[in-house]
């Protein structure tokens, strides 16, 4: 573990180099662009950039990769707000409050807020990464299947809450869970619902499903309804600098979301998407203005965007401290280490403290860069809304298709996206909400795998979940939180009735 002075002494000389700074700027711009492009995710951007880092020094490689990672997590919110199409998975929850805000003519406010919340989440997680990584990692490693199960069940609990019709929300959510069972079952190795297609062995590609439902489906819906140009008021951009009142009002939400983001992010195989789902779910249950969530309020943006960026730093904690890849992003980062003959882990803190310090500084730098560019650029990004729909929508379609194709150069995935586009169109026509379906799709495998793995570990004993303190506490909390709004509402109703009778 290093002190601030050591980090600066060791890391700054490496980072303060024209080439490194230029690469960091390039990484930030690429990350924001890729993040904002529907279908192109940070993971993909990094795996595309990795071959380019062959000839670079390790510091240069991370100067390109880390800002790409953090900026793409923020960039996803730009298209989520402006187009109602999440640019990355982590921005799915951002659509719920960001887009209604933009429709009210407050696109600038939404962009400014999401940028600031992302920055706050990112910086705090960067601090945790730099100063507490070894301790956090040793603690995180103790979390196992039973704890992951509890966290995922908590996330699942929100499905019923984010839909105007509980019946339709539950239906969409369970279909999403069912869709997630397609592919090779990771516990038994059995193929399920493959219909003989090898492309489905790894399950339906997440990006294809997300882009299909949100992107292609949304555009098809507009086309089928007939393209009508937006009224002037919806094109107003409004102020782009974040309103201090908004930020102060949402401090409790922001703090909660940072904690959730750090906690969920550090869990292996979790990450920014699940962090923002969980934080939004928590807000929906304990937030002061939880009933207004989904109508375009700052708390919604805070929950989604603070949490997903808080998870970015937390997700690389186990990799830096112990050399364990937790998710796709950290697996790529470990690949970048390996390319340069380095092995992340405790040994690296002794053998290459300068590179480790450089990584911490670069992580922070990425956050600062996207914050500055994001705030100044917000007005410019929001101009997208000025483009006539008739021109904008076909172009966005092209990027949706190519983004889906680019994930693993697969034509099959493009067809999956179109099929889910039609499903999204029909769902919109029938008034069935999209978000619960994609949430079920994300959380399903985590719930199923960890439930079954826990049972194997516990020798078939269902009570195994209560054996470990963290999972027991989490499960009890989950049950309480799932029940609490209904208990609360029952209590409130009673009070009102009593009042009326008086």
């Amino acid at each position: 573990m290093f002190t601030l002075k050591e980090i600066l002494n060791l890391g700054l000389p490496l980072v303060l180099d024209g080439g490194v700074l230029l690469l960091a700027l390039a990484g930030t711009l690429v990350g924001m662009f890729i993040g904002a492009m529907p279908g192109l995710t940070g993971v993909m951007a990094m795996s595309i950039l990795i071959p380019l880092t062959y000839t670079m020094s390790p510091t240069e490689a991370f100067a390109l990769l880390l800002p790409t990672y953090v900026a793409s997590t923020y960039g996803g919110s730009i298209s989520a707000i402006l187009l109602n199409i999440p640019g990355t998975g982590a921005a799915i929850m951002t659509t719920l409050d960001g887009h209604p805000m933009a429709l009210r003519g407050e696109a600038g406010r939404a962009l400014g807020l999401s940028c600031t919340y992302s920055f706050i989440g990112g910086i705090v997680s960067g601090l945790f990464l730099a100063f507490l990584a070894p301790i956090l990692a040793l603690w995180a490693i103790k979390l196992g299947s039973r704890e992951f199960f509890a966290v995922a069940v908590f996330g699942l609990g929100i499905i019923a809450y984010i839909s105007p019709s509980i019946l339709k929300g539950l239906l969409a959510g369970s279909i999403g869970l069912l869709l997630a069972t397609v592919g090779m079952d990771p516990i038994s190795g059995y193929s399920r619902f493959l219909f003989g297609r090898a492309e489905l062995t790894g399950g339906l590609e997440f990006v294809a499903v997300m882009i299909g439902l949100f992107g292609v489906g949304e555009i098809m819906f507009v086309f089928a309804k007939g393209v009508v140009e937006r009224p002037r008021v919806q094109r107003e951009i409004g102020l782009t600098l974040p309103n201090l009142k908004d930020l102060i009002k949402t401090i409790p939400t922001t703090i909660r979301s940072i904690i959730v983001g750090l906690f969920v992010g550090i869990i292996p195989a979790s990450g920014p998407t699940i962090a923002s789902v969980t934080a939004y779910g928590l807000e929906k249950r304990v937030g002061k203005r939880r009933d207004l969530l989904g109508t375009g309020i700052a708390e919604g943006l805070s929950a989604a965007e603070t949490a997903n960026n808080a998870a970015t730093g937390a997700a690389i904690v186990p990799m830096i401290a112990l050399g364990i890849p937790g998710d796709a992003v950290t697996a790529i980062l470990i690949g970048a280490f390996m390319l340069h003959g380095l092995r992340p882990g405790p040994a690296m803190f002794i053998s290459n403290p300068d590179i480790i310090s450089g990584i911490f500084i670069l992580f922070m730098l990425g956050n600062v860069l996207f914050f500055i560019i994001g705030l100044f650029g917000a007005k410019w990004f929001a101009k997208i809304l000025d483009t006539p729909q008739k021109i904008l929508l076909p172009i966005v379609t092209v990027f949706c298709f190519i983004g889906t194709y680019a994930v693993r150069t697969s034509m099959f995935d493009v067809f999956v996206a179109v099929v889910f586009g039609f499903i999204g169109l029909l769902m919109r026509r029938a008034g069935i909400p999209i978000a619960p379906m994609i949430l079920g799709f994300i959380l399903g495998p985590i719930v199923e795998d960890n439930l079954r793995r826990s049972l194997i570990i516990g020798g078939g004993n269902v009570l195994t979940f209560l054996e470990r303190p963290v999972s027991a506490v989490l499960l009890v909390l989950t049950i309480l939180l799932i029940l609490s709004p209904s208990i609360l509402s029952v209590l409130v109703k009673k009070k009102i009735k009593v009042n009326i009778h008086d």
Partner: protein
Amino acid sequence: MGRKLVLIGLVLMITLSLWAAGQPELKKVSFPEKTIEIYVGFAAGGGTDILARQLARNMEPVLGKSVVIVNKNGGGGLIALKEMAVKPADGYTLGLLLGNQFLQKYYKGSDTWIDPMTEVTLLGVFNQDPWGIAVKADAPFNNITEFIEYAKKNPGLRVGAGSPGTLYYWTWEALMEAAGIKLTIVPFGGTALSLTALAGGELSAAGASPSEADSLVSAKLVKMIGVSSEERLAAFPNVRTFREDGFDLVIGPWRALVGPKGMPTEIVKILEKAVRDAYYSDAFQTFIKEQGFGPLYLDTVEGFEFFKQEDTFFREIMKKSGELRGGM
């Protein structure tokens, strides 16, 4: 009318087949004339991808054309292989074959598979990673014999692996079979996750190669009690082999370069030489030593013999555990 069509069709077919028959004569002159693509069924930056890129880089000087990696991840490498197998067998589209393709062929749980014996052309096996056993740093056993002793006294020890659709699961099965012990195999989504669970205390042991476990070993959270290779690895001279401790089990995931079936012999020869020269190049040898990849090179003839052994091995082990696909 119909007769005329048939006649025209016949003439066309004959012309076409004559033209096609003339083709190999032309091709023999020079290969390669353009960029060669290798389909890799794993994401960029992962172990297989990095190794494949290193091989491709060192094949380039031999062939005089660029060799590029195309990532088509999914299905444990199967998607990339399936797409590669239907491309023209002209040597410009190649793929990677891994040990688990034999497994998928015989495991009754998998719906789709490719038969490595008949559906691809082997160009060379260029790596075999050792399989090893990692245990908690404070575990009361330090080598494979002590582990087996302990497992005999405590049946049902929890060990981590992938699902039965992956290789590491069956290496545990092979160990149980060979040693006559009973373990509970807990499937995880990847070696990294099972190693984390081991360090966290959910498991007593996890299957991993020494390089996969290396960072946790240096964190003093886990230790390696042995590897399944024939000799100790240059990168990890402290890790004992199973053979040293009197337990003969040589097993581990390997990687081979393949092309679509029915490739012309001349092109196979050229590519076989390219793989061999790339493998023995200094750059490649240094790379695998530094990164802890296991050394193995087999040319097409040796490799095919090796394939036959693998084929029987997986068929037998699936049969014994009652997981053999019907009709195999």
